[in-house]
């Protein structure tokens, strides 16, 4: 039967080996995949300001982006493609809660410039190569 010291060797060995592989793969992703898939050349100041607004207002507390966040409000990865600039800005600049189907969004009342920053952020987000996510609906009705 397995002895305690063999069990310990299994633990330490497995950990060290998988952790080394994990670091290697992560390194590869950050240095090769991120430049190819995320268009860093388009990450201008406006996009970064948009990301900042996205975070400092905790938009992820209701929405998802890249499928990460909360499940109370729509996925926004492809929102620019789906709705376009005008619609997005209207929702962001509204002084009373935006509520297309009765479910309310916080009325942020962003300025025109802030809303434009967020739109740029969404544009950048929408162009990231996500290996096929979000899926295209495929059941014809």
């Amino acid at each position, binding site marked *: 039967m*397995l*002895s*305690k010291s063999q*069990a310990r060797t*299994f*633990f330490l060995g*497995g*950990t060290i080996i*998988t*952790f080394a*592989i*994990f670091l290697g*793969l*992560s390194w*590869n*992703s*950050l240095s090769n*995949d*991120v430049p190819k*898939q*995320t268009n*860093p050349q388009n*990450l201008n100041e406006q*996009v970064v300001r948009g*990301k900042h607004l*996205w*975070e*400092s*207002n*905790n*938009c*992820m*507390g*209701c929405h998802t*982006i*890249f*499928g*990460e966040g*909360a*499940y*109370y*409000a*729509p996925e926004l990865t492809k929102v620019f493609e789906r709705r376009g600039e005008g619609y997005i800005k209207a929702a962001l600049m509204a002084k009373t809660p935006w509520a*297309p*189907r*009765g*479910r*309310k969004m*916080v009325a942020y009342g962003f300025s025109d410039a802030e809303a434009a920053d967020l739109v740029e952020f969404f544009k*950048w987000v929408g162009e*990231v190569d*996500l*290996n096929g*996510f979000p*899926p*295209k*609906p*495929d*059941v014809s*009705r």
Partner: protein
Amino acid sequence: MKYQSQKVAYWFFAAAILLLSLQIVYGFIMGFAHMGYDGLHSVIPFNTARAVHTNLLVVWILLGFMGAAYYIIPEEAQQELVSVKLAYIQLISFLLVGVVAIIGYHLNYWEGRKFLEIPRPLDWLVVVNVLTFLGIILATLYKGKKRTTTSLVLVMGLVFAALLYLPGMIWFDNQTMDSFFRWWVVHLWVEGVWELIMGGILAFLLIKLTGVDREVIEKWLYVIVGLTFLSGILGTGHHYYYIGVGKIWLIVGGIFSMLEPLAFLAMALFAVGMYRKGEKKHPNKLALYWTLGTAILSFTGAGLLGMAHTLPQVNMYTHGTLVTAMHGHLAFWGAYGMIVFSFITYALPNLTGRKLYDTVNGQLAYWLSNIGMLGMTAAFGVAGVAQVYLERKTGLEFGAVQQEIEVHFFVLVINATLFATGITMFIVEFFRFGKPNDEALGFEERMQKA
């Protein structure tokens, strides 16, 4: 209880269950909002309720872990904690940081990254606090007579958990990089180092409750934590499928995360096996119930329900839907909520010297909370599957789908009420024990002889 300084654990447990009750209140707010009753929207919008709900969750679980460590380490190392005063200061300051963060969430002051909403300046206070905690634990272990495997695994988990908090504090302009490192905290915590903490606590409980030889238990502990890291580290890849990094993760993440349930299965087999092997009859039956329940529900919630959506082909459709919330609830409760409850149930009589074993209230608390949580899981699951089908397969619009599935949140709230009733009874029992005291020294040993 064998050492006076272990008493500090009681206050960590008291704080933990209080924060849990507040967490539940915010859970109800969200449950109702999903049903269409969002009357509190102008005061507590959904994102506030959610940040409070999940942050309180993490904080009360951590308080439970810390309390357990303050109880376990003196007994394992045969050494009083080096400073009880510092431990109290650490508790109070931790709570203060938590309260400030939560008030901030009501005033739109946060850093909206899921689970890591605490703003950067407060992060630094958390770091100082956790270093204090680790300082006390490590110094006690260092001064102590013994360094057992159980205590080493527990402490290793705590130290790594602290280290892994740091990648979450780096600022990135690129959302993909942001997400990439966020998972070093979130995933490597719950599917990595927290399992070490859980394994350490579980081993301690099984040694005490079943009386099986320590050498046997600790050997299996190594196997379990070995399986955890072997699968869990590369399993991080299941969060890298669709965030803007390469397709290699679809293969690596898929294969290794499919192996992750093995660690939870091993824990379940281990707990049940030791229970059947054990000859000692410990009077605290309820603690044994909770311990076995943890082992089984963690396998169900984390292992099976995690596996259900971890393959890239499935996750493509379920990613970021209520299916995730289904798994999140039973996994967090079944593994970490329940291990904390197991430990509290085990430790309370020993800390207070009260012989309130196996009471009716205690039994009811156990069954109501667990049945309620299973019902909640089912409600989230049905809502989630319906959402995936309607939204991701047929292409119905998000808002329209949400209206279709409102009814499942009614079921959720009913089950949440059962759950909350169970938790209330647990809290009532908790306070019936009274305060920890020095007369309780040696209580557990006296009870076992009797």
